[in-house]
């Protein structure tokens, strides 16, 4: 049991960074990690290899992110209906510490950020990434292609913000 805790502790920074890439906001990122840990502890993993455990945790975290996001988006739509506001701005903290690379990354859509983080930052295999995102391997490949192209265009400054909405 404590062995499991130690494994979790080791993976904690990775989990937090993945959550940050998803939420783009430190405090909600940690909320997400907390929820993920609670789930993980309640489910009692029998994952031995660290890589396996990491993909499993990432999957839980991503699932939770998507679920809460769906709720939030529904709420945002409602809010938009009443207030006429449409976009919630990225957090000031994150923007301040962000460099231009991060700004471009933050503009990608949720799935693209999740995938690029898993593959390019964490070095997960395509198969593991498919497990985390709960999509077929083929979808991972086509998404990766689109994500990389979008990021490239953003870095080259070819796309302005309004066009990005269409990309989503």
């Amino acid at each position, binding site marked *: 049991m404590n062995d499991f805790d130690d494994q979790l502790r080791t993976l904690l920074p990775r989990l937090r*960074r993945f959550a940050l890439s998803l939420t783009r906001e430190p405090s909600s990122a940690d909320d997400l990690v907390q929820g993920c840990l609670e789930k993980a502890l309640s489910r009692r993993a029998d994952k031995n290899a660290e890589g396996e455990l990491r993909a499993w945790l990432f999957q839980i975290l991503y699932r939770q992110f998507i679920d809460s996001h769906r709720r939030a988006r529904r709420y945002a739509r409602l809010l938009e209906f009443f207030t006429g506001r449409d976009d919630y701005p990225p957090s000031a903290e994150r923007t301040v510490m962000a460099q231009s690379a991060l700004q471009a990354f933050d503009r990608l859509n949720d799935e693209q950020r999740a995938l690029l983080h898993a593959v390019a930052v964490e070095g997960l295999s395509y198969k593991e990434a498919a497990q985390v995102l709960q999509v077929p391997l083929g979808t991972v490949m086509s998404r990766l292609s689109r994500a990389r192209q979008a990021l490239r265009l953003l870095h080259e400054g070819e796309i302005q913000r309004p066009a990005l909405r269409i990309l989503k």
Partner: protein
Amino acid sequence: MITLPPTEHDLHAYVDLRLSPADRQRLETWLASHPEEAAQVKGWQKDARLLRSVLAASPLPDNPALDPSAVRQRRRHRYQQYLGRAAALVLAVAVGAVGGWQARPGVAPMTDALQAYRLFAEKDVLPADFKVGAGDSVQPWLDRYFRDAARLPDLERAGFKAVGARLLSTDQGPAAMVLYQDDRGARVTFYIRPPGPGNKLLPRGSRREGELQADYWSGPGYNYAVVAPVEVAMKGLQIPL
């Protein structure tokens, strides 16, 4: 083994270091003579490096709440709270069942008035819905809920003043209990509720249950009771009825 020219999949696999060394070698040779694809791959590599340096190296502030042992403890705590709530619910259902059974016909009249006294007057379990301030009177408050009911008894001569009131719900309908108190802290309650679906009216009567005595009767539209400790009732409250 990849085939040349490479698919886009192969190019991504190259960027993500997912090709075998031999394939890697072949692809690099091919890219050397295909500058357009080479530039594309280089761009992707640059982006990936940038993301790694920015995302994987970002400093994280300490957050002790995320330590597994802290998470475990919170889970345990929540589980206990959940058990507590479940127990409270069971208790409430049990009280309701006993109360409901007590209110059946055949049960001693105005048992609920005695229960209300025990619960609210003796034990001060719940705060009053209405507290009597200086110059206040309970009567208007009561009239809001019970139309054309008998007037509150004046217990002044026995030394009791109304201090507060509480609404209750019973099987027979909404009830109210008015609490009287004298200088020594003795308490008497006046209880009013509808006769219920059976419209069961009570012959005037009085009975004792433990330390308490209940005087009950039916009046305009409602059943009434005055509940008092036996020694107070013995002295006579001189209830003008």
